[in-house]
């Protein structure tokens, strides 16, 4: 091996320093609580009980859960790809009036809280839902409600990840293949498809990850019949109080998520290999011929039925026959559901989300800056992967882990309001890193060098060159972190205090109660949550210029 370049330590000291803050944050607020809950479950009589794993796996109902979790995730992923890939193509290659609106509409569901998605589908296909009223069709007792909700939720992931790249592929590459004698189909198959394949794989893995760990949607739509790992972990912890089974399930989910993330990192690296990318605005053109117009029409119809209809029904149900009665009921603290008026959840959610966003932006921003340089070693790549883990590790486990791990000095936070934003920030950090990193990496190092030769110190060069270029990305990252923490459910449901519920927690509690009034209030509260998230997203869309990011 060649010796280390001179000044290696000096140049890397800054980076190691930047990594220290996120590393400590993750150690204390992620690794420690998760480890604590696993230890609580697997330790008995002062010793480890690895035999518990085999015991749990031997139970047929647990095997049932594992099987259901896997196959519903596979089917959801396949279904999402089939339905969303034409949309990716249409948005990448066609130029038509209303394209920006369509793009924004597609993205809204992704930032919607899972609880809202669950409630919306409940209003569409559930008991007393639109389909029930019109044709007497109910899907909430079947797996279809879950699958459709998953497609709804992940449509944007595929369109953004695949379509973003598709729009930037140079069409002349295909033209070059045609000039060399390839038919239209052969040219697509041999030139475009291989270039797209890593993006399709990355999108599929993300969808698989989100659906494999699905909680809010399944909790609401699954009923007693269908249960994913995450729902089962919640049931074992909160209802059955069987911590050791929950710990084993957490470990299984951890291993599965680790494998999916490793695969994802690998496909992302392949995606970054040299592709000829061009400005997306030059590749799109008007659809030509009946076939292309029909395809575009099909995409618009799909979006209308699958994405817009559930949200429209949700809004309609929130008014019901009673006008604004449900909304008015939200302001009254009469039901036994809460100690306070449900409307106060709006204020709680916003306060928590602001704090969580600040934490996520600081932690994720520092991590992204530390990871900017591409000549990263194994250590840095490992750090990159570590930051992605909260995306898939059971949020329920994190929430419950907070309760049992952060309960003694110096970290006695159980009574503190900061507990909720901390847990929500954990989920926001991966989004911040993923949004900031591509932009930071795209800043030409020679711009920094030009500043330095003109007399700017490294810190000054960063402030003068990098910061202005990434300010927009920083805002977008903050917006995502905000939306994510508004919608966070799995961890918050454990740690939000009964007198301080967040919006999703309040919705879930209302749905868990019988009666039209509770149902209507859940719809109304979901509508409010949806509006807050949609507004946040539309503001982001205006800020966003490049569409190469994953989210």
């Amino acid at each position, binding site marked *: 091996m*060649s010796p280390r370049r*001179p000044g290696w330590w000096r140049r890397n000291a800054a980076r190691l320093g930047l990594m220290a803050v996120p590393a400590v944050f993750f150690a204390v607020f992620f690794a420690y609580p998760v480890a604590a809950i696993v230890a609580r479950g697997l330790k008995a009589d002062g010793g480890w009980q690895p035999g518990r794993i085999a015991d749990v796996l031997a139970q047929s109902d647990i095997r049932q859960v594992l099987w259901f979790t896997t196959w519903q995730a596979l089917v959801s992923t396949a279904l999402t790809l089939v339905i969303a890939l034409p949309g990716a193509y249409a948005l990448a290659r066609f130029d038509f009036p209303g394209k920006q609106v369509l793009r924004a509409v597609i993205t809204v569901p992704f930032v919607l809280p899972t609880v809202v998605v669950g409630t919306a589908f409940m209003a569409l296909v559930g008991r007393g839902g639109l389909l029930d009223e019109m044709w007497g069709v109910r899907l909430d007792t079947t797996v279809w409600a879950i699958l459709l909700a998953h497609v709804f939720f992940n449509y944007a992931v595929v369109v953004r990840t695949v379509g973003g790249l598709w729009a930037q592929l140079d069409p002349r590459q295909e033209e070059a293949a045609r000039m060399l004698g390839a038919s239209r189909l052969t040219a697509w198959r041999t030139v475009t498809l291989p270039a797209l394949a890593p993006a399709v794989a990355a999108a599929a893995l993300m969808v698989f990850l989100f659906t494999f760990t699905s909680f809010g949607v399944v909790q609401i739509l699954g009923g007693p019949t269908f249960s994913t790992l995450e729902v089962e972990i919640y049931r074992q912890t909160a209802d059955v109080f069987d911590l050791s089974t929950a710990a084993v399930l957490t470990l299984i989910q951890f291993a599965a998520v680790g494998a999916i993330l490793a695969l994802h990192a690998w496909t992302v690296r392949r995606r970054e290999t040299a592709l000829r990318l061009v400005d997306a605005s030059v590749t799109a053109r008007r659809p030509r011929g009946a076939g292309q117009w029909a395809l575009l029409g099909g995409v618009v119809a799909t979006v209308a039925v699958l994405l817009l209809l559930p949200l429209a029904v949700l809004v309609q149900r929130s008014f019901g026959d009673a006008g604004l009665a449900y909304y008015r009921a939200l302001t009254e603290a009469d039901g036994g559901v809460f100690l306070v008026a449900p409307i106060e959840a709006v204020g709680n959610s916003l306060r928590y989300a602001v704090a969580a966003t600040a934490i996520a932006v600081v932690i994720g921003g520092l991590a992204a800056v530390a990871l900017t340089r591409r000549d990263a070693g194994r250590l840095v790549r490992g750090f990159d992967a570590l930051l992605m883990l909260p995306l898939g590790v059971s949020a329920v486990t994190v929430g419950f882990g907070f309760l049992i791990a952060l309960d003694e000095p110096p970290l006695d936070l159980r009574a503190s309001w900061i507990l909720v934003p901390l847990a929500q920030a954990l989920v926001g950090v991966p989004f911040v890193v993923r949004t900031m990193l591509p932009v930071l990496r795209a800043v030409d190092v020679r711009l920094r060098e030009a500043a*330095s*030769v*003109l*007399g700017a110190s490294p810190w000054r060069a960063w402030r003068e060159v990098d910061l202005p270029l990434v300010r927009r990305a920083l805002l977008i990252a903050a917006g995502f972190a905000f939306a994510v923490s508004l919608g966070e459910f799995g961890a918050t449901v454990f740690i939000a205090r009964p007198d301080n519920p967040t919006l999703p927690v309040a919705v879930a509690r209302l749905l868990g109660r019988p009666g039209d009034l509770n149902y209507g209030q859940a719809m109304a509260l979901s509508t409010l949550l949806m509006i807050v998230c949609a507004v946040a997203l539309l503001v982001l869309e205006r800020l966003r210029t490049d569409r190469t990011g994953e989210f």
Partner: protein
Amino acid sequence: MPTDSPMPVSSPTPADSPTPTGSLLRIEAATVRFGGRAALDAVGLDVAEHEIVCVLGPSGSGKSTLLRAVAGLQPLHAGRVLLDGRDQAGVPAHKRGVGLMFQDHQLFPQRDVGGNVAFGLRMHGAPRAEQTRRVAELLDLVGLPGASGRAVAALSGGEQQRVALARALAPSPRLLMLDEPLGQLDRSLRERLVVELRELFGRLGTTVLAVTHDQGEAFALADRVVVMRDGRIAQSGTPLEVWQRPADAFVARFLGFENVVEASVADGVAVTPWGKVPVPPDAPEGTRPLLVRPAGVRLVPAGEGLRCTVTARTFRGTHVAVRLQPENAPVLEAACALRDAPDVGDVTGVEFDGAEITVLG
């Protein structure tokens, strides 16, 4: 004159211990390795104050690495860089007080023209009024008066180049370095700008170290040309010296000469594959590479001299380059006037002019 007013920006001038030679820049045995390959291999170079030195070499010869090493952007594995006699080891790029104009300019996209030019002045804490005055002065100097408020994205290639130059000049660096300064521009603009640059640097008394792969650019710009090959210096001299007496076959071929062969030289005559040719009386003797400039290949009627067939002719504006294929010998290139040029396929004779022949080292 901008350099007359001492800027608050230049590094402290060394009052003590200047190098005995008085070089502004001295590079001693500088070595940089990428992996196992040496991008700079024990390079030594001196640049005197007010001198314009141009490093010439093919891509990959290490010339850009040399500039980056002087700027402090590329750490050395061995050797030293001295500015005003002071070792720059451990001095970060932003404290070296040198200017570097990047190959593709690297203007800051989020700032306008004035913001780019003022950047170095701001970094050195120049007062705002001073910045405004100096920006206007420099934009005048590079021929873009009043462009201060324009967006850099709206500039043409030539204008970007001028802004980059103004930005590099603004803090009055003691040494200005240019990396392929005109590389991105089209030919006619390049030829005009190189003359302007030389005139400007002469007027300002700027010390310049430039790198380029274009010999025409180097010869037009430089007081002294340094030819690099594989991380080493192959030759250093005035443009005329390098042109007239290339140090070796590599330099001769890099300058565009094709008539280079091995020859054995003795008593004012060289034995070559083309036969015996006359060489200057002071030529070194022995087996050496020998260069025949195209002008030294004289076409004579067929039957006289070396018998050749014309394989190609290329119009070069002032003359015609003629490719000649002798029997059993390497191709020859000749330069002749348009009206004398033979047609492709003609058979002609060739004689050699000793004044245009150089025996290489």
